[in-house]
């Protein structure tokens, strides 16, 4: 009994695949099939690449959401972290060549600032994450309203922002997808190979045990929230580059999809369990769903209803907590 199968390591990824992740991929295939019945475009490479590009905005944002959810926390400040990232990077562009050059990092930095406030609130002030992130969301919104006077800002996205969102470094692969791949690869590396990743999973399972094991839990929390805010802002930068400018409330539509993507991908909302592969599946699933709803030309109201129902139903299928008895 006491001998250890130490040679196994983590390479048996297919053997250990989470049923939730498998289900999510199954649903993706199903959606594609359903879509192809509706329009033959659905299985075309261009359409799929376009979907992947749209998915990459959500993918970047969901990466941050996942990190925080793995800690057993939640980041509801994403909507205005996204908008702040978009608006501030556009705003920086108005300050000459230096501003243009620093537009992207500045936008991300603003998002990280929101995240750091969240992190300090959660880690040092012990405020429930849901509450402090709602509060910082409200503050970020207030700041942006004051800054823009309540109108859509007139500043435009820089060339670089447009390039990373819509350009093609590799022919026919949109740059936004590359950004997502880089972010995703980073997430996978940090979660599985570093002490930071172990600490994240550990804190998600039991913060008390992690603290008593000598983990600097507060630093990890602040760091994770900062990264989450920064990634939301990066998502905002990409979105601003995509549509050439920032807009009020542009981030509002990303909160539910980002959290849903993470949870549908099998990450436990209680923290401590989940894989990035699942989040990728969840993001693609949500994006395809949105695409099908818009292809079917269902009005906004109907889309909201269907969207909400689908998420609830999918969660009911495999996102449930275990029965208590």
């Amino acid at each position, binding site marked *: 009994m006491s001998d250890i199968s130490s040679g196994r390591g983590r390479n048996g990824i297919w053997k250990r695949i989470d049923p939730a992740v498998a289900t999510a991929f199954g649903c993706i295939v199903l959606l594609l099939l359903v879509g192809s019945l509706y329009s033959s475009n659905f299985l075309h490479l261009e359409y799929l690449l376009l979907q992947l590009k749209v998915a990459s905005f959500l993918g970047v944002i969901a990466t941050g959401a996942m990190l925080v959810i793995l800690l057993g926390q939640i980041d509801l400040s994403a909507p205005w972290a996204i908008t702040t990232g978009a608006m501030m990077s556009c705003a920086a562009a108005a300050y000459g060549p230096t501003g243009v050059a620093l537009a992207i990092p500045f936008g991300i930095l603003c998002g990280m600032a929101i995240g750091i406030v969240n992190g300090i609130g959660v880690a040092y002030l012990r405020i429930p994450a*849901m509450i402090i992130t709602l509060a910082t969301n409200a503050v970020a919104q*207030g700041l942006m309203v004051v800054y823009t006077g309540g109108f859509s800002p007139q500043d435009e996205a820089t060339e670089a922002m447009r390039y990373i969102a819509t350009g093609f470094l590799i022919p026919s692969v949109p740059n936004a997808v590359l950004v997502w791949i880089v972010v995703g690869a980073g997430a996978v590396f940090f979660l599985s190979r570093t002490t930071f990743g172990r600490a994240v999973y550990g804190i998600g399972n039991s913060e008390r045990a992690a603290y008593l094991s000598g983990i600097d839990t507060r630093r990890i929390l602040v760091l994770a929230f900062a990264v989450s805010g920064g990634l939301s802002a990066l998502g905002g930068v990409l979105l601003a580059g995509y549509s050439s400018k920032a807009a009020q409330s542009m981030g509002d539509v990303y909160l539910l999809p980002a959290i849903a993507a993470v949870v549908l991908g099998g990450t436990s909302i209680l923290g401590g369990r989940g894989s990035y592969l699942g989040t990728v599946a969840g993001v693609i699933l949500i994006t395809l769903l949105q695409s099908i709803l818009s292809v079917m030309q269902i009005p906004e109201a109907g889309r909201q209803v269907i969207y909400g129902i689908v998420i609830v139903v999918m969660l009911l299928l495999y996102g449930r907590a275990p029965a208590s008895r």
Partner: protein
Amino acid sequence: MKDWKYWLAEQRGTLLAFVTFIVMFAIYVSNHPAGFTANVVQTAANKGVLLAFVAMAQALVVITAGIDLSVGMIFILTNCLASWIVVGTPLETALGIVGVLLAGLACGAANGLIVIYGRLQPIVTTIATGAIYFGIALLLRPFPGGGVNEDLADFLTGKIWGVIPVSLIVLLVVILVVWVPFSRSVMGRTAYATGSSEAAAYMSAMPIRRAKFLTYTLAGLLAGIGGLFLTFFTYTGEAALASGNAYTLFSIAAVVLGGVSLYGGTGSAIGAVFGALTFRAIGDLLFVFDLDPLWQPLFQGVVLLIAVSLGAFGLLRVRNKLDWFA
């Protein structure tokens, strides 16, 4: 210790909320150009009561250590519904009111069913159902419009004997009819017990699931009453996403200001009502001091941020760091 000391300890949150409200309202009124008049009180009451209903809704769920991020959307949905059906003859109006309340009840029950019997996390569930409720609201009222029985609306938003705002009386009646029996029933105690320690409540064979379901359902009802009152104030229905989100957010602020622990198990809906009135009074200080309305969202956000940070002072008293993770 004497009995009353134990009682004080138990009601500390609610009492603190009451005192805070008195202080804030005093500042508000003393700086108001019109001073402490019946009209000022009436306006303040009408605005405060709307949030008070939604905050009570939130408090019920929060006591069980749950959360309902769809209360704002139920509020908006019932507003849109009321702008269709709370019209016409007194009988039609009455039936309409019943219909609106039932709709609120149904939304809350749906949340409860999914969270409790579907075993899903309340945060994600209620964000998703909130999207559904908002979608339905938008279907009902793609554009702002509709109407309401104006006689009734004027009465309910007016004053009785020229002094007391009717909306406050309605609020009091709702507290007496919904909250007081609930809090003194087995279901209410189960709700508190579940929020305090679900494992212990289960071991004690308490009806946890029924109690939780009841809190979500009553939360829907209370948010529905709020939506109904919104219609009485505005005479129209409007599917405003921003307003729905704001009310959800403010309901949480009110609950916090009202001394209801977000970890569940303590506080009361009455505290949340005072929290709501306090939040409104603070928000209105901006107008009293004649600042640009553009600053209001920021101001409210900062108030919320400060309110939730105040609890951190308790951390200074924590001498065992493990208590941070309780």
